[in-house]
Every structure is written in structure tokens, then in C-alpha cells.
């Protein structure tokens, strides 16, 4: 049956034959069926009328074989390119893929842990900051005299008691002295004692007030120090958590700094770079420049121009012999693949 794929379509094309089932085995594509579907029947008379005298014959089987071969070559080529090697058995590819997957999974788990650590750390720091903010407000209110703390109350109550006790003692001392003097023969001494008492008691009161203030201040300071110490401890703990997380990230078996940067960006820890796009372009340019340096210096070396002989005339390196063409890849493709 002659086939002319370039023939014009007949006005009444016959209905296409149903495509036969694939034969399996070495056949990858049902070429015969496809040809039958795509082609149109033309009579020899029609061709003669068109001026065609000779017709090239190509059997369906041959077309089938040629197409299959072309497809197989292309598949093999791209498979080899994708694998980076030409003779890698399927089993090895599977094993490597599995290993790669396990490694990536492990990296993911490590990174996720680091992320959790950092998240935890960030939450703790937020809580701490909130506490500090509240404390600061309280302290500020205290300084303004708007808030009476329990501790402050206790302090004041304690001092009041102390003041009352002191007052009692002072009164007792003066009373005793007064009784002694009243029993004597010097009435002016009692009056004098009264004057002394009037002078001494305000002094004692002032001293007590000053002492109370000093005590309150020292009490406040120690409270502040304790609070700061507490916070420093907490911050140290947070820093340790952070360090731990960063250590995990730096020990991660990730390929490049880029990926780490991405993780940091996802965690909100990396500062956004306004020049990010610009830098990317610059890095590409740096790459191109470096490639051209290599290329140009090779060309110069071919001309005998080197650092030792900048004017040329130096030894020309032997031309590199291209390697012999590699044998077609032998990939054990499964039947019908």
C-alpha cells in the first residue's frame, strides 16, 4: 500500500480505521495506527494526473522503527543529562533518590526544630517585654505618687510602729527625768527640761523621717536590682535558646547560604534588603564577567599571550583533544516505557 504523507486531501476522505491495540514488547508508540489515522487514501490515477511519475515507498514498519528509535534516543539523551552520568543503573538512581529524600527530610526536621526554638524564644521575649513594660508603668506611677504598693504600705506601717515606739521611749525618758527633777529642790530645772524636750523632739522627728526615706529608697533599689537580676536571668535563657537554634541552622546540611537566608526570612529574623533585586542583578553580572575572564584568558593563552609574555610569543598550550564520542547510553528501559 503506497503512502504519501504529502499528498493533498481527497474531497471525500474515507473514515479512519480504528487504531490497533499496541503490540507491546519493543513498541513504544503505535505508529502504524497513528499513520493510518492521519493519512488519507489517494488513487494512483489522481497522482498521475498531478504529474507524479515516481513514488518513494516507506513501509509502516520502517516508519514505526525510525520514530521509535528517535524517541528512544531522545529519551536516553535527556535521561542521561538529567542524571549527570551516562551509565547509572536504575537501582542506583532509586537508592540515591531515596538517600536524597531521607537527607532532605532530616534537614526539614532539623530546620523545623530550629524554627520551633526560635518561635518559642520570640514568644518568651515578647512576654518578658510585656512584663517589663507593665513594671515600668508601675514604677512610673509609684514615682508620680499615684500608686501605693503593698510593699510600700508594709514599709510605711512598719515605720509608723517604729515611730510610735520611739515616741513612747522618748516620752518615757523625759517623764522619768521630770519626776526625778520634780522630787528635787530646783523647780527651774523642770522648766528647763521642758524646753529641752521641745527642742529635742522635732530633731528626733526629722531624723526619723530622713531615716524612713533612706530606708524606703534602699528598699526600692534592692527591689529594682532583684527585678533586673531576674530579667537578666531570663534574657540569658533566651539567648541560650537562640544560640541553640542558630547552631542547629548552621549545622544543617543545607546546600547554601541562600536557603538559610530564606529560612531566616520566613522566621522574620532576616532584615529585608531594599537592594535585593539590584544585588541579584549584580551577582549575575559578576558571574558573567568571571566567565568572560576565563574565556578571554584562554583565548590569549592560545595566542601565546601570558603575564610573562604580554606582547605574545610565549609557548602556546597544546590544543585540548576532544574526548572520543561516548557510546550511546545503555539505560535499561522497561518495556513499553
Amino acid at each position: 500500500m503506497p503512502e504519501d504523507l504529502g499528498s493533498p486531501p481527497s474531497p471525500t476522505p474515507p473514515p479512519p480505521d480504528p487504531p490497533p491495540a499496541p503490540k507491546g514488547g519493543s513498541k513504544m508508540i503505535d505508529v502504524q495506527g497513528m499513520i493510518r489515522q492521519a493519512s488519507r487514501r489517494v488513487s494512483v490515477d489522481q497522482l498521475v494526473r498531478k504529474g507524479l511519475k515516481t513514488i518513494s515507498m516507506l513501509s509502516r514498519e520502517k516508519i514505526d522503527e525510525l520514530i521509535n528509535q528517535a524517541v528512544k534516543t531522545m529519551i536516553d539523551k535527556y535521561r542521561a543529562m538529567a542524571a549527570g552520568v551516562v551509565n547509572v543503573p536504575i537501582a542506583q538512581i532509586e537508592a540515591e533518590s531515596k538517600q536524597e529524600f531521607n537527607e532532605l527530610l532530616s534537614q526539614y526536621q532539623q530546620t523545623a526544630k530550629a524554627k520551633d526554638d526560635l518561635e518559642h524564644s520570640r514568644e518568651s521575649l515578647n512576654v518578658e517585654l510585656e512584663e517589663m513594660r507593665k513594671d515600668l508603668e508601675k514604677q512610673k506611677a509609684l514615682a508620680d505618687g499615684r500608686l501605693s504598693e503593698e510593699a510600700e504600705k508594709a514599709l510605711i506601717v512598719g515605720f509608723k510602729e517604729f515611730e510610735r515606739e520611739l515616741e513612747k521611749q522618748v516620752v518615757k525618758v523625759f517623764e522619768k527625768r521630770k519626776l526625778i527633777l520634780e522630787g528635787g529642790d530646783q523647780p527651774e530645772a523642770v522648766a528647763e527640761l521642758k524646753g529641752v524636750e521641745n527642742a529635742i523632739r522635732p530633731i528626733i522627728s526629722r531624723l526619723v523621717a530622713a531615716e524612713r526615706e533612706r530606708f524606703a529608697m534602699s528598699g526600692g533599689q534592692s527591689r529594682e536590682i532583684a527585678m533586673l537580676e531576674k530579667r537578666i536571668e531570663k534574657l540569658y535563657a533566651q539567648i541560650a535558646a537562640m544560640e541553640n537554634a542558630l547552631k542547629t541552622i548552621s549545622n544543617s546540611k543545607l546546600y547554601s547560604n541562600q536557603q538559610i537566608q530564606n529560612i531566616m526570612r520566613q522566621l522574620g529574623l532576616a532584615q529585608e534588603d531594599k537592594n535585593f533585586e539590584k544585588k541579584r542583578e549584580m551577582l549575575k553580572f559578576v558571574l558573567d564577567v568571571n566567565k568572560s575572564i576565563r574565556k578571554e584568558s584562554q583565548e590569549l593563552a592560545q595566542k601565546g599571550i601570558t603575564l610573562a609574555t604580554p606582547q605574545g610569543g610565549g609557548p602556546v598550550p597544546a590544543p585540548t583533544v576532544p574526548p572520543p564520542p561516548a557510546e550511546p547510553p545503555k539505560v535499561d528501559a522497561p518495556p513499553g516505557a
Partner: protein
Amino acid sequence: MSDAAGRTTKEGVLYIGMDLGCYKTSVAATNGTREVVFSIVGWPKDPVSRKLLGKDIVFGNEAFQHRLALETIRPFEKGALKYADNSEAGVPADKLARYKEAAKELVKYVVSLCRPPKGTLVYGVIGSPARASILNKQALMDACKGTFESVMIVSEPFAVAYGMNTLEDALIVDIGAGTTDLCRMHGAIPTEDDQLTTGKAGDFIDNLAMDLIKKAHPEAQFTINMVREAKERGSFVNDVNDKALVTWPNKEGKPTNFDITKELKEACRAIVPDIVQGLRKLVSSYDAEFQRRMLQNVVLAGGGSQLRGLDRLIEDDLQQYGGGKVTKVHEPVFAGANGALKLAADMPEDYWKEVK
């Protein structure tokens, strides 16, 4: 997980930024390493010195200390390999191979200071002067071959700008030992038109100071290293009342005090006109609308930027252009290496594979 060469990459990647200077080399790595060493390599002169040092090759500060017992090479001296050809750098043709070997060994040593764990891939970015030729850049790459898995070269002032995230409307002045590189940053990779290099830098100051001190104090005995040390201790260009006093031996070998304030100041100031001229050139050829903004952002980097008062001196000179603001980078010695490291760390993984 293995790379094309079959080497395991399970230990990860170590990124390194390196500033191979004519006098000092600084390095910064992603594992936190930051080192600066003298760019000098030494081989014991004879079996005696070999036994004394207990090493076949000595680097950096140790080589500098024992330089009398060593055959020393400063592989990048006077711009050798970095930006000059042999004749310009004064490297005899028969010595070039030795210079290249020294450079390779120095790079290896500096990377070893970063202690990359076994199996780690080492990717690096190296700074090169703006005027470096293709051959110079290739020489730097050759020096890195075998030590780095993959390496890229970038312009030194660009690395500084990248490290500081100053990519727009800024003028970077990188004062090294061999060259002073000026670079105009305008939001894109600087081209040749955006960069200038002058040969007046640290070494120029040292040589000039040496000549001036010789004239002023003929009775003093000193070497270029002693002058450099004095400069690093008390270098300034402004008119403050600082004094640079040194105790050097006189002709009889007796330690004597010398006042070298005037000579040092004059030598240090000698690099300023070229810097200011370069800045003027870069600014005047820039878009008029942005000139003022650029003048407000002049950044000094490199070891030479540590000259006290240099920023103010340049600012004074910029007054005729309506004024300018000059700032110094936080870490002048590491600015280049830090920038190179940042570039290395930001570089996508695929790019490294493309230049392996």
C-alpha cells in the same frame, strides 16, 4: 549527595572573602574567621635556617619576623600579578614562576587559617584592583586553583561598596599599599569609566617619608620597615599638635630620639591631591542632577584610610564643589574582605558551579 567530581558535600560550604593586598592580606569566612597577615612568603635560605624554623615554608607575620633567614617574596609587591605586568612590577622573567608559586602558597595558607572542616567545599571571592588586566585576574585565579572549589574575582572598591550596602550615589576610595582605587557607585556594577586607580598609596608614602627623613636626619639609621611602623603608629595629615617621635639608632648605633612629624605629615599628605583629583573627575563626569548627592557620600576604606585627618582634608577640598561628606569605614583593613565575603555568601549555588 555528591558533586560532579564525586566529592562529598555533606559537610556543607565555607564561603571566604579575601583581599589579597600588596602588603597585607585579609580574610573573612562564614565560620567567623577574620585574619590579617603580611603578604609575604619565605623559604629557608639554607639547612641551618631550615632547622631553626623547623619548616620548609613560612608565611605572613612569621616570615616577616624571620625575613633575614629566609628567601622572601612578596608576591603582590608593586602590583605584581595583581595589576602590573612583569616589567612594571620589576619582576625578572625568570622569577615569575616563583612569584606565582608564592601567591599560590599564600592563598593556601590564608585559607588554612579559616580551618575549613574536611570535606567542606570552599567557595571564595577575591578582590582585585580596578585596573587589573585579564591576565592579572587569571593570575589571581591560578593562585586560587586547588585551594578553592570555585572562585570569583571582583573589583576591590565594588566589594567594599557591596559590603556596606552602599550601592547608589556613593564614591568609594580604597587606599591600599600599592594602589588607591576610586569607584563611583550608581546602583549598577561599576564599569571602567566608573573606576580610577592611582599609584599613590601606602608604599608611596613609605618611600617618600624615607627620602624626606633621610634628608632631615642624615645621622639616623633606619629601614623602610621602621618608617612604615612609625607611619602606622602616628600617621596624620591634619594640623593637630601630635608629634611623631621615634627612637632609632644614630650612626654610632646609639639609640637616639628623632622628631619625624614634619616628614611623615608631608609624605602622608602627598597622596591627597591625587585622591581629590580623582574624585573631581568621577563627580564631574556624572549626571549633574546627582553630583551633589554623590559628594555627600564619599567613603574611605583600606589600610591607608587610617591616616588621621584625611577625611577632613578631603572635605575641605570639596568645599569648592559646594561641600561634601567623607566618612571612614568601620573596619578599614577588613572592609574589602567583608564585602567579598558578603558577595560570596549571596552568590547563588548554581553560579559557583558555572565557574568551577
